[in-house]
């Protein structure tokens, strides 16, 4: 009897120890995140000013700003979103609603899973060989946007599929029963009901793309850009110009990389400030995504 009691006490003790270890494990991540944000904030906040957003990079650390970087990031993201969203959603719809069960569908599915494991810099190498030299897009915003679009395509496809899969099949059956075709069912029922999930996935994917720098460095993004791309709108006809697509660019993470890899400590402060802005961009996007997921979940009741 005493032995059993001791045994139980021993195992309860181990159980308690593991609970503590688990908490410590959690705290490693949380403490790092806090330390990282505080570290950036302490160094970076003093550099944040209106000027920091409206100045080009400069040889003088205290005059340098992130104008070309945030404009570049915005334009690249526009290209990325307009390429990845239609393609990814269409692929997701096909795989969930249309695809027959055959070897080709299986091939596509294995492919998407494998693409998600390919290192991002390899996408950059592919873009360098294909977009930059083979297609002649050059080291432009277009190349950068398309590269990141391919990178996040698997994420968009997976988010679309999961979102579509959560729609109960009676919805589709009701639509077919009223004589709707497959496409009408998809367009009028499946897509509207899955918009929330797709939007969440797209925003999270874009927030990853915003922080990516390795593939863009590989395609030859410049680290020092003291001019802006051609404006998309002009006063003279034809009013709209797509010249900016072909312009060289820099983006926020590359600007930060450039500053952090300089030896002077003053540039490290700029890097911290740029990092803080970049971090806020990704955190805000993640926040929006979580909010959208929450709202849509509340609104739709099957």
């Amino acid at each position: 009897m005493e032995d059993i009691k001791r045994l139980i006490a021993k195992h309860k003790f181990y159980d308690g120890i593991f609970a503590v270890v688990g908490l410590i494990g959690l705290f490693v991540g949380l403490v790092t995140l806090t330390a990282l944000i505080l570290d950036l904030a302490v160094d970076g906040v003093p550099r944040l000013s209106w000027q920091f957003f409206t100045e080009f990079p400069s040889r003088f650390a205290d005059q340098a700003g992130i104008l070309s970087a945030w404009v570049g990031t915005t334009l690249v993201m526009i290209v990325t979103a307009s390429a990845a969203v239609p393609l990814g959603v269409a692929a997701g719809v096909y795989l969930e609603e249309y695809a027959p069960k055959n070897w080709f569908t299986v091939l596509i599915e294995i492919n998407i899973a494998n693409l998600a494991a390919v290192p991002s810099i390899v996408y950059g190498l592919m873009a360098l060989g294909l977009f930059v030299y083979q297609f002649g897009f050059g080291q432009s915003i277009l190349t950068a946007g398309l590269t990141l679009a391919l990178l996040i395509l698997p994420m968009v496809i997976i988010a679309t599929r999961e979102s579509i899969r959560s729609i109960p099949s009676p919805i589709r059956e009701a639509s077919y029963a009223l004589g709707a075709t497959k496409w009408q069912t998809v367009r009028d029922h499946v897509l509207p009901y899955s918009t929330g999930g797709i939007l969440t996935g797209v925003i999270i994917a874009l927030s990853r793309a915003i922080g990516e720098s390795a593939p863009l460095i590989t395609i030859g993004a410049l680290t020092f850009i003291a001019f802006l791309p051609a404006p998309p709108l002009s006063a003279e006809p034809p009013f709209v110009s797509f010249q900016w697509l072909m312009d060289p660019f820099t983006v926020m993470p590359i600007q930060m990389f450039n500053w952090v890899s300089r030896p002077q400590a003053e540039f490290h402060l700029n890097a911290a400030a740029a990092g803080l802005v970049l971090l806020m961009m990704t955190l805000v996007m993640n926040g929006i995504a979580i909010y959208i997921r929450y709202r849509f979940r509340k609104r739709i009741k099957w």
Partner: protein
Amino acid sequence: MASTRSRIRHLRERLIELILLLAASSSVVITLGIVGVLVYESAAFFEHVSIVDFLTDTQWTPLFDDAHYGILPLLAGTLVTTAIALTVAIPIGTITAIYLSEYASHRTREIIKPVMELLSAVPTVVYGYFALLFLTPLLQILMPELPGFNMLSAGLVIGIMIIPYVSSVSEDAIRAVPMHLREGSYAMGATRLQTSVRVIVPAAFSGIAAAYILGISRAIGETMVVAIAAGMQPNFTWDPREPAETITAYIVQVSLGDLPHGTIGYQTIFAAGLTLLVMTLVFNIAGYVLRKRFREVY
């Protein structure tokens, strides 16, 4: 009249299906594009450099006059940083997953999970900054002779960065273990720890292995942290305290310069990229085999 309309409608349906099929096929095209470009440019590289030299030479100096093309120094850099990252991420990720699914209350889980996900949302260049300007000075207090660039701090930061990948996939696998296995174990008088270690982890092992493989892929392919914090000098060493260059950091280093298209220096980055792709592929195939072997069906 009606038949024309239905024919048009039928045609439109087929057309839309075709467009959607093309979109879905894009993933295959991307894969072919990646493999095609890497193999094509690497083939040109291997016309100049024999594969034996590439795999056995212990120097990597492609841009010097006395050029050596041995991938080993870069490979060692990649393996050392990956190993450090995994010694951080695998224990912490697994423990976190078990804790969140078996120990934590529902409320704790709902709060902690999104915060953990944020760890993977932080841009990698920010992690690089953190490794170089926060963690390295901190480590230098403990190890005064640690150089400013070193693999240790880069590896540790990568490890923390991939914890969420390991923990969230592991947790999904653990939660998929049927409830009656847990109940059976508890009914035998097992504690939560005994149930977790002897029943749940073995049952969820194929999913947990998938999580580890994902973590390994991330660590091998991680670029900016090592490019910033581990230095950009090829250095054939297994000592994590030394600076060294990884395969990915080398690609960044060359890309930052201005190498003309078609030169051997330009081709080296594709050979390096192919090595990287083959490494992740090998680990993924290994993971696939493991998953097959340990798959538990209920």
